[in-house]
């Protein structure tokens, strides 16, 4: 049995690393926050972890588009390894091949999409979808209802049903490169979570679908289900007092977001 060990990346505008690491720890993982400079300098090695976490924030201020400059940074960045320079890209692919889990939340999801790490249907880093400006034209912080697809291979959302998390973004509108891409994603059940109305119906309607995403798509996974990214913030709901209506509803102590991290921990222990 493996011990779940999370590496939470920070630096250059990432800003939810603390609560993300907190969520991992609550779920029984060991979690370390590491500045990306330490990864590039070789002081922190992906190989020492089995869960790689790209948290939310504003990588490089989202200049050039959300996480775009960050994607260039990771895609073309070099890691010092045994005295010579290796491509971070290769380190990352190696991590994935070895069965590691990767989660990207909000800006981390945007990063994974723009690096081509999601939906990753061809098994190589190639961007095939994007997350663009919300139809409202604005950044917004509001809570959204989600429904998890029980048929999705995603290991994080196993056994969940309705979820409720905040979105906090200005660029979350899911757009596929083509109808064909969308069809592959849908057929392979790579959409673990979709925006719904409070009644639970998948919707394109604002504000329930906060950004105008096609087919209510709020997150994506790869065909193995080990790589997962989503716009809403599961780490922002791990305790009942984070819920916007905790003072008026009867809620369990643990927030719904914690299940995702517990699923990840459990998967790692079992694999």
């Amino acid at each position, binding site marked *: 049995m493996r011990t779940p060990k999370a590496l939470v990346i*920070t*630096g250059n505008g990432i*800003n*939810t690393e*603390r609560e993300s690491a907190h969520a991992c720890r609550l779920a029984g993982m060991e979690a370390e926050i590491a500045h990306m400079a330490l990864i590039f300098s070789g002081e922190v090695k992906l190989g020492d972890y089995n869960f790689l976490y790209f948290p939310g924030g504003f990588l490089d201020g989202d*200049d*050039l588009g959300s996480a775009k400059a960050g994607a260039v*940074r990771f895609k073309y960045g070099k890691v010092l390894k045994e005295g010579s320079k290796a491509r971070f890209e290769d380190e990352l692919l190696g991590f994935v091949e070895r069965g590691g889990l990767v989660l990207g939340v909000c800006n981390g999801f945007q990063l994974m999409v723009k690096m081509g790490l999601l939906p990753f249907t061809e098994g190589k880093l190639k961007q095939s979808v994007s997350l663009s400006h919300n139809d409202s034209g604005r950044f917004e912080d509001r809570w959204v209802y989600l429904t998890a697809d029980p048929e999705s291979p995603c290991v994080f959302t196993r056994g969940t049903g309705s979820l409720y998390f905040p979105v906090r973004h200005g660029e979350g509108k899911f757009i596929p490169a083509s109808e064909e891409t969308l069809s592959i994603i849908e057929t392979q059940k790579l959409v673990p979570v979709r925006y719904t109305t409070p009644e639970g119906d998948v919707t394109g309607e604002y504000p329930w679908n906060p950004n105008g995403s096609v087919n209510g798509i709020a997150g994506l996974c790869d065909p193995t289900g080990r790589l997962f990214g989503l716009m809403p913030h599961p780490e922002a709901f791990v305790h009942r007092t984070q819920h916007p209506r905790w*003072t008026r509803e009867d809620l369990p102590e643990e927030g719904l977001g914690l299940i995702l991290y517990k699923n990840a921990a459990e998967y790692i222990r079992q694999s």
Partner: protein
Amino acid sequence: MAKRVEVAVNPDLRDSRGEGCVREIEEFLHIPLDGVRTLDAFTLDFEVGEGELSALAKEVFSDPVVQVSSTSGKLGAELYPAFEWLLEVGYLPGVTDNEGRTAKEAVEMFLERSLPHQEKVYTSVQYLIKGNSLDRETVEKIASGLLANPLIQRWRILSRKEYDASGGVSPEVPRVTGVSQPVVNEIDLEVSDDELLEISRRGLLALTVGEMQAVRDFYREEQNQAKRAALGLPADRPTDVELECLAQTWSEHCKHKIFNATINYEDEGGEVEVITSIFKTYVQGATKKVREDLGEDDYCLSVFIDNAGVIAFDDDYSLCFKVETHNSPSALDPYGGALTGIVGVNRDPMGTGMGSQLIFNVDTFCFANPFHEEELPPRLLHPRRIYEGVVTGVEHGGNKSGIPTVNGTVYFDDRFLGKPLVFCGTAGLIPRTLNGGPGHNKRTKAGDLVVMAGGRIGKDGIHGATFSSEELHEGSPATAVQLGDPITQKRLYDFLLIARDRGLYSSITDNGAGGLSSSIGEMAEQTGGALLHLDRAPLKYPGLHPWEILVSESQERMSIAVPEDNIEEFMTLAEKMRVEAVVMGEFTDEGAFHLLYDGKTVGYLPLEFLHDGLPPMLLNAKWTPPVHEEPSFECPAELTDELKALLGRLNICSKESIVRRYDHEVQGGSVVKPFVGAQNDGPSDAAVNRPILDSFEGVVTANGISPRYSDIDAYWMTALVVDEAIRNAVAVGGTLDHLAGLDNFCWCDPVESEKTPDGRYKLAQLVRSSKALYEYTTAYGVPLVSGKDSMKNDYSIGGTKISIPPTLLFSVIGKVPDIRKSVTMDAKRVGDLIYILGKTYPELGGSEYWAAKGFTGNSVPKVDAGVNKKLYRALEAAIQGGLVASCHDCSDGGLGVAIAESVFSGDLGGLVDLSKAPMEGIARNDELLFSESAGRFVVTVSPKDKAAFEAALEGSPFALVGEVAEESSLVVDGMGGARIVEAEVGSLKDAWQTPLAAL
């Protein structure tokens, strides 16, 4: 040869930026357009091959799924073949271009080579416009009137014909050129008083004749002359470096001359009192008194001496808080001003003690009506542009820094047309002990090195401190405007927290107003001197004079004292984390601020003179109570309509459209959010946050602001805002046991002069406000720990003068023992009992209700701190005992508004008999509904807790007035059995939500 890349959204996708332009141009400029499409242009000012360029266009500058790119300069014509005019807006040379900076880093990553500092990427936005019979003049108007700000941006306009003839748009590089040789000038002060004043005016020094004379006299002293000659300085006159340094240090902004002045105050009875420093007497005096009263329970750790005030939090952490204003820059460039305001105030807690971890931001704005329709005086921006720019600036500054914006308000009054007020605040946590000493103390030692880290220095922000010490006038300098860079600052912040925890530095402070002259000048006080090599500062572009380097207010910089033993480790860490840091000198104990350039002394100012040489001001104040017309209208028959109208008043209506644009939950500690209730849209009274995620102890913050009461008496305005902030904090579960206050005064110029003939009255308002601040903070036992004043909030151009109403923002911060006991304002369950706490008096002077009717009146609400404190204590106990289902503060719009908000936020109705409410002297039902008496709450309680709740409140004014009803209507009976309100709750909520929803 510069190269150009153009990028746009795919032609088959919506261009929401372009659509927004069409809307806004129509709305603001009344120019109807057929369409606008936009594209982003990147100008690359370095050598790059054709192959590399097209790879960059595809891989770095554009998103292959949703964007198209081109290197031809002709993307516009392909994208929008029908366009008729092209407008391209970029930055002026030297202005911060964040996206350009990021683009350059991405290019370096992609090309695997690093570029020299001066080889840059510049960004601009191209607007492709189509409209009926547009001419160049109209396009020019679109540029200057909406899409560009001439203070920071430049633009070019091409007709379609010109565009086609030149084969698209050629690269244009806004490089800083015409660089001058750095020089040091000497200034002869042996001139007439008029000439002294002229030197001050021309140099934007904002020094008075008396102050200029004090400077001159220093250079007359023989002892000083001898020392200067020995250093190779002009013996009998200052260098420009010295004069500028003195002007910054002695500016109203930095020295708070009015708050430290000696004032002769004459009250309405002719009684004269001499006040030696309002600051020492009433502000520091209040804190001293409260701390004495607290005795062993004193939780203040560091007050008034550092960048932020510090109080205790728990065994491991202390809590610090600072609120600043950024009014003048926001008037000229609302976006840049507000952005700089928020990232600027972030650096205050970052530079407090040994540096703190930032846990939340707060923002309060005062604007003129955004729907203003009359002609605007010259140089003023439309309040709607100010509103949009400020909100966007704070949105970008807060969100990109990863600091939640948890509390604040927006206040509207048309006198804020002349200068908007932009208050930004930040709280932080400092380790209680750090490397063997208290985290809230600095430990600079002589011999420590002076290090500057973060951004580079440019001409931006030069004279910010002196400029904000003046009214907005025709010559207000454009260099006072600058753009913040949240990401450079975030990197610096991430780096500094690591350096702090490793014990690599001994002291830290921020570079804000006055730049290095201020930060190093102040740090030097701890050791008794500093030596600074100005030529070692990294510059954004060459050609800055030594004095400019010293006083530039370029953003994102911290000054740090690093012991020599640690410097190597400090610099290595900085380099690894891509933070620029340079050693600029060292702290000494030689008693002076010693400035060098290229090894030559260019300034030498004894600290004693620099910090204490400023002659105190002598001012006069005379209080004559104003008398306003008393309202004469009858009590309206339909109070339901009056209530709806009040709910839609700008100062009462929902601000949700603004608040949703701020991330209020990042860091995961949000407990009481800005909007709560059944639909997440009811207005919270205060914020509760949990900064340490494995502890249930939390932080409460709240504010009070109400400038309109100053029209009657700034004394009561102040009493009311202090009471309101405390009341708001108590309403959500805060405790008077552990609460601290911050005062931010924004006044109109209170110094009597030709420009300000009513200075004595305005100063009397300030005196009265300060007296009330002392009275009420000491009565409530809430120590003041920090604050700021901004005293020149006037506009004066041509014959027009607009002065803001005297404004005090009172902010509180405190500890919540258990966040799980927090209470929100929304009514919870059908059948819960509705109580009114606190007594209602006929106090409608300065109320929203009378303002709606066109009256100010004179019956301003009074505050009885004794009665209120007892009530707040009782309510605190009831909340801690879990007896309170909901609690809502009652302020603007009175009981009517508070009850309506409580029930509609719960998606419930209410049956209320207000004739049962505690009251005295109330003769009319509109008074009962809309009076703004202090010290009141609307509380709902579960029937099972009735007896315990009433027992807890025993001895305070309160009454059971009704219950929460299932029906979706609110029914309120008043005196004489009259039914005074009967309304669908949904219609009340609509009235409240509509006014600003679309902004």
